[in-house]
């Protein structure tokens, strides 16, 4: 087998580039379309495209998790929010944000940073795609042997976000509920972040 190069792309590489272009196009339409629900559905195409890219890189597990979490849950949540507030069929004239030029600048800066860093980091590294690289076992071993600490830090972050969401959603419970919460917060001050104090202050009394 000859050394890999840019001038003789394999089928997988061609498919990878084409899928990338589709993903990029769908993402561009998602942010520029004036129809709110269409934007969410184009997001499905973009996120699905990324899942296909993972598949082409033989990272099967990550691909299915991508579909499960982003397409199956996050987009459904987005659609739910849109339907709950307003989801007109057709164009929304006020769908343009005044911040769009700033947003474009931020997006371009982020993309430029990511592309330069990733290209610089993996300059001449080639993945051998003939043997699967991202099987469930390989990912599990990497995650729970070498990356346990970041994993746990992330779960703590998610827990904090969860507790925060509960606190924000209970703010409206009236003065009585917030008093109870303050009292239980004072009791739990030394404990680790715990959802109980925020969830059920009434039951503790």
């Amino acid at each position, binding site marked *: 087998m000859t050394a890999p190069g840019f001038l003789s792309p394999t089928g997988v590489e061609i498919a990878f580039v084409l899928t990338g272009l589709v993903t990029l196009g769908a993402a561009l339409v998602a942010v520029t379309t004036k129809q709110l629900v269409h934007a969410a559905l184009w997001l499905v195409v973009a996120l699905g495209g990324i899942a296909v890219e993972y598949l082409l890189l033989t990272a099967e597990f990550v691909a299915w998790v991508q579909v499960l979490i982003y397409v*199956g849950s996050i987009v459904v949540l987005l659609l739910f929010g849109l339907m709950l507030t307003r989801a007109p069929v057709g164009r929304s004239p006020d769908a343009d944000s005044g911040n769009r030029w700033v947003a474009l600048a931020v997006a371009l800066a982020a993309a430029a940073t990511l592309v330069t860093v990733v290209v610089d980091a993996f300059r001449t590294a080639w993945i051998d795609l003939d043997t*699967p690289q991202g099987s469930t076992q390989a990912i599990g071993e990497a995650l729970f042997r070498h990356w346990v600490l970041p994993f746990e830090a992330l779960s703590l972050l998610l827990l904090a976000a969860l507790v925060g969401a509960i606190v924000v959603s209970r703010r409206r419970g009236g003065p009585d509920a917030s008093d109870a919460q303050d009292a239980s917060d004072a009791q739990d001050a030394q404990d680790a972040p715990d959802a109980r104090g925020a969830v059920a202050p009434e039951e503790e009394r």
Partner: protein
Amino acid sequence: MDFLDVAWRLAAVLLAFLTLPLLVGQAEHKVMAHMQGRVGPMYAGGFHGWAQLVADGVKFAQKEDVVPAEADRRIFRLAPAVALVPYLLVLIAIPLAPGEGGVGQAVDAGVFFVLAVLGVGVLGQLMGGWASANKYSLLGGLRTAAQLMAYELPLLLSAASVAMAAGTLSLPGILDAWEWWWLPWQLIGAFVFFTAGVAELHRPPFDAPLAPEEIIFGPLTEYGGLRFALFLLAEYAGIVVVSALTAVLFLGGWHGPFADQLGWLWMLLKTGALSFLVIWMRVAWPRMRADQIQKFAWTVLVPLALFQIAVTGVVKVVFP
């Protein structure tokens, strides 16, 4: 795996996809009828009305193709396909018999694959509910989305419990590791998975998103003819898929006497029995309200699924 082999497998999966949902549909006609003290369709095809669904299909195909004037035409037309195709994809990964030849394609992260693709199917109903530009459809779409988000979690957690027990995410791998005493061990998980699966399909008693007496027919209100038939087919295919998955994950799939020769029969029997149960539930129980459905998911199924995961973990560590 050569070309002929792949073509043969795909043809077999397509055949299962085209026949099993129709069988379930016909069974629903007859089982519901007999449970309600009537005979059901008797004329089409002669023997006990076996061709009723074929006649229904011909009727649906003849109907005028109507799209509401205010609807988003493209999304409205795309929605039935988005609802139906995922079930076809899922069937590829479900093992029917032991060995390499018993499954369309062994997927390494099979549990995640089937649950991820099943979630995409519900997107079709959401699209239909929104694109119809009908307030009842929109209400149904809202309930669909809320129900999906509530029941996805117990579904995943109970499937994760089996994956923990087997030490693999691959569906054939889970069946290879399966022992009979997993039945009592994973009993709670089986209940949670089956219930959540039925709820994701919006079958009674979890059919508040459709609820003909309240919101006409939810996301499907504006659909007629062939597109409605596709949604209906998706529902029956969904029953087959959820029953087959429950059979594979919790009832041992092809395990049974003479599994080497008769494995496919055991798998079909278990799937059929669970499908019967789904139909029975429709006849036996009244519809739950939308808020009761939410409450049931978050206060009953999620804690039960977490408890099952704890039990699985303890047993796995104590009796390695």
